[in-house]
C-alpha cells in the first residue's frame, strides 16, 4: 500500500469517525453559550480552545464536519447519478444528436463561473444547506458527464466492444456490462477529488453566509465568525481552517493513492 493511500485513508477515516462519534458524544455542548469561558486558547479543559461564545471548538468541528461531509457527499452523488448515465449515453450515441446536446450542455455549464452561479442560486432561493448542495451538485454533473464520455469513447473503439456488438448486444447493455465496470476506477478517483472540492465549496459558501444557517455549525461560518477576532484569538481562525485543510488533504491523498493502486494511468480532471 502506498504512502498516499495510507496517510489519505487514515486522515479521511479520522474525520469520518469523529463525525459519526459526534452523533453520540462530543467533548462539550455546541449549543450552550458560556460567555465567561470565551476565547480560551487550546488547553487541557478545551483541547482546541473555545470560541467567542465560549463553545468548545473541538465539538464545533466534529459537529460542523457533518454539514461539510453531507453537503459534499450528496453533491458528488448528484454529479455521479446524473453525469455518469449522461456520459455513457453520449458516448454510446457518439456523433448523434444526444451526444451533441449533452456535450454542448456540459461545455455551457463549464463556461459558467460555478461559485458565482452558486451564489446566484442561494441568493435567489435563500441560503441553506439544501441550496448549497444543489448549487455544488449541478457543477459536478458536467465533470462526471465529460469524464465518463471521454473514457467511454476510447473504450467503444476497443475490439472487445466490437466483439460484444457482433454478439448482438444493445448499446445500453454494452454500456452497463462492459463500459461502466471499466470506467469505475476512474469514477472512484474523480469522486474522491470532487468530494474534496465539495468540502472547499461548502466552506466558501457558508463563509459568505450562503451555506448552512445557524444554529447548524459549519466550518465556513466558524471562520467567518472568527474573522473579527483573528488578532485577539488567532486559534479561533486557525483551527477550523486546519480542519478543512486536513480533511481536503486526506481526501486528495486518498484519491491519488487509489489512482496509483487501481491504475496509475487514469486521467482525472482537476480545476
Amino acid at each position, binding site marked *: 500500500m502506498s504512502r498516499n493511500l495510507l496517510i489519505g485513508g487514515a486522515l479521511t477515516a479520522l474525520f469520518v469517525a469523529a463525525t459519526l462519534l459526534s452523533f453520540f458524544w462530543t467533548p462539550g455542548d455546541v449549543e450552550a453559550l458560556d460567555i465567561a469561558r470565551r476565547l480560551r486558547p487550546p488547553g487541557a479543559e478545551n483541547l482546541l480552545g473555545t470560541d467567542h461564545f465560549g463553545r468548545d471548538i473541538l465539538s464545533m468541528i466534529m459537529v460542523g464536519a457533518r454539514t461539510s461531509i453531507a453537503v459534499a457527499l450528496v453533491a458528488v452523488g448528484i454529479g455521479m447519478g446524473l453525469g455518469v448515465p449522461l456520459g455513457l449515453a453520449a458516448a454510446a450515441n457518439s456523433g448523434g444528436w444526444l451526444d451533441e446536446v449533452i456535450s454542448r450542455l456540459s461545455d455551457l455549464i463549464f463556461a459558467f463561473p460555478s461559485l458565482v452561479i452558486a451564489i446566484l442560486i442561494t441568493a435567489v432561493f435563500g441560503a441553506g444547506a439544501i441550496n448549497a448542495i444543489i448549487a455544488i451538485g449541478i457543477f459536478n454533473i458536467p465533470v462526471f458527464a465529460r469524464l465518463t464520455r471521454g473514457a467511454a469513447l476510447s473504450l467503444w473503439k*476497443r*475490439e*472487445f466492444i*466490437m*466483439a*460484444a*456488438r*457482433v*454478439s*448482438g*448486444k444493445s448499446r445500453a447493455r454494452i454500456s452497463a456490462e*462492459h463500459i461502466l*465496470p*471499466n470506467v469505475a476506477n476512474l469514477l472512484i478517483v474523480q469522486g474522491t477529488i470532487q468530494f474534496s472540492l465539495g468540502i472547499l465549496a461548502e466552506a466558501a459558501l457558508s463563509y459568505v453566509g450562503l451555506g448552512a444557517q445557524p444554529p447548524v455549525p459549519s466550518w465556513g461560518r466558524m471562520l467567518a465568525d472568527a474573522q473579527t477576532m483573528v488578532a485577539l484569538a488567532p486559534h479561533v481562525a486557525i483551527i477550523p481552517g486546519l480542519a478543512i485543510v486536513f480533511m481536503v488533504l486526506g481526501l486528495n491523498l486518498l484519491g491519488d493513492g487509489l489512482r496509483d493502486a487501481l491504475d496509475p494511468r487514469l486521467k482525472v480532471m482537476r480545476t
Partner: protein
Amino acid sequence: MTRPLSSGRTHPLDPEGAPPLLDISGLTVTIHDKTILDAISLQIAAGEIVALTGESGSGKSITAFATMGLLPSVAKATGRISLDGEDLLSQPESRLCALRGNAMGMIFQEPMTALNPVQTIGAQVMETILIHADATRAAGEDARPPIRAEERAREVLDRVGLPQDRFPLSRYPHELSGGQRQRVVIAMAIALRPALLIADEPTTALDVTTQAQILDLLGELVREDGMALMMITHDLAVVSDMADRIAVMRKGEIVEQGPTATLFAQMRHPYTRALFEASRHKADLGQTRPENTLLRVEGVSRDYALPRTKLFAPRAHFRAVDRVSFDIRRGERVGLVGESGCGKSTLTRAILGLEAVAEGRITLDGEPVFTEGHPNLAVRRKMQVVFQDPYGSFNPRHRVDRLITEPFHLLPDPPKGAARTQAIADALTAVGLQPGDAGKYIHAFSGGQRQRIAIARALIIRPELIVFDEAVSALDVRVRAQILDLMAQLSRDYGLTYLFISHDLSVVRSITDRVLVMRAGRIVEQGVTTEVFDTPAHAYTRALVAAAPTLPEEGAS
C-alpha cells in the same frame, strides 16, 4: 518496381583493412537485475547494411538504443560499443549529445508520432543542423564551416523525395502521410551525413508499396554516402535482399550472424531455420468443394461526411466503399487484401451488420444482414469475427468462460448448466487449450493464446462464416504460423467458411483459396489466390506483388 540491391560487398569485414565503424563487443544490458542483452558482439563497417532480426523481446531495439546512448535510466549497460574508435559507453552525456544526430542518426517505427505536431517539418530538420552548430560554436571549435541550416534542410528534404513545390519547409506533420513523415524523419537523421544510421523497424507501420519506396531510399543513401546502416526488423523477408549481413537475435543473444547469402544457405542455428520456415509457412488447407452461395455482397457503397471546408457549403462526402460486389460460397476460404484506407475495414463492418450501407445489399443465406436500421439477429447468429489485437479483444474484467460465451447472447435458447460447460470445454479444446482455462482471466495468457481464445469465442455458436480481421498481424512469425495451422485445421474439420482480411500478401497466400484485391473502395481484381498472385492482371495487384518482400528459396545462395 526494382528492389534495392545490397551494396555489393560480399566480404564486408576485410581482415587487412580498417577497423569497423561500429564495434560492439560483449555488450550486456540489465534492467532491475534482469538480463536484457547478454554479451552480444556485432560489427558494422562503413557502407555496410547489417540487419538485426528476431521476434519481439529478442533485444533488437535495446541494442539500437544502447548504441545511441538512449537506454532508459534504469538500464545498466556494460561491455564496449565503439564508434570510429571512440568508446560510447564511457562517454559523458554531453559528448553523446554531440555525437547523436551528428555522427549517428536514428529512424523509428512510428512515423505518425515521431514528429512534433506543433512544429513545421523545416524547423524540425533544421534543428538537427542548428543544435550541432551551436554545440560546435560553444566548444570553440570552428573547424567546420557554418552550414546554412535552411539551405541544407531544403537540400536534404529534396534528397529524401520531398520536393520544394509540394513540400515547402513550412508544412506541418499532420499535412503529410505516414510514408512522407517517415521521409522527414530520415531527413532529420541524415541532415549532417552521419557515419552510422540506425533504423528501428522503419517500415513496419507502413503499407507494402510505401515500404518498398522507403527501403529503396535507405539503400540508395547507404550506397551514395557510404553510411553504415543498422537495420532492425522482425521481418526476414524485408532484409533478405537488402542486407549485406544478418544477425539473428533471440532472448538477448545473437544466435547466428553472417553474410546474408551464406546465412540463408546454411542456417546453422535451429532458431534461424524455425524463423525462416515460419515466415514462409504454408498452411495445409486441404481440399474444399464449395457449395451454394453463403455471403452475397451486391453493389455496396458507404460514404462518410467530410468536415465542411466552407462555412455554409454542403458537406462533401468521401466514398469509402464504392459499388463492391462479390460472393462467398459455403466452404470457401476467401482473402481480402488492400492497403490502409482502401475501405476494407468499412466493408468488414458493413458485412458484420455493424453499420448501414448507403446503397447495395449484403445477404447471408439470402437474408439481409441489416434491415431497417437494425442488425438482423437471426443472420448475425451465423457470423462471427476475430480481431487483430490480442490484447484489446477481451474485457479484462471477465473470465475466459464468460468471454467466450458472449455470442450465446445471439441464441434464442442459450445452453445452460452442464451443456454450457460442455460447449466451453469443446470450444477451448478445439483451439488447443484446456477446458480448465475457462476459469482464468485473460491476462494469464500470451498473445498467441489470446488469439486462440478469440477463435474459441467465434466458434462457440458454430457460425457459418467467420471474419478474420487482420487476425494474425500482431503476432510473431512462429506464433502466427501456429495460428494459421489452427485455422486450416478447423476449416478442414468443420468445413468452415471464412473471409480473411489482411494487408499481408504472404499470409493471404498461405491461408486462402480465393482472393479479392481492394483499392480506393473498389475490388480491382479477384480470383484463385495462386493465380492472382502469380499472374496478376490489374496494374495495382502487380505493384502490390512486386513490392511485397519475399524470402529466397530454401537452399538458394
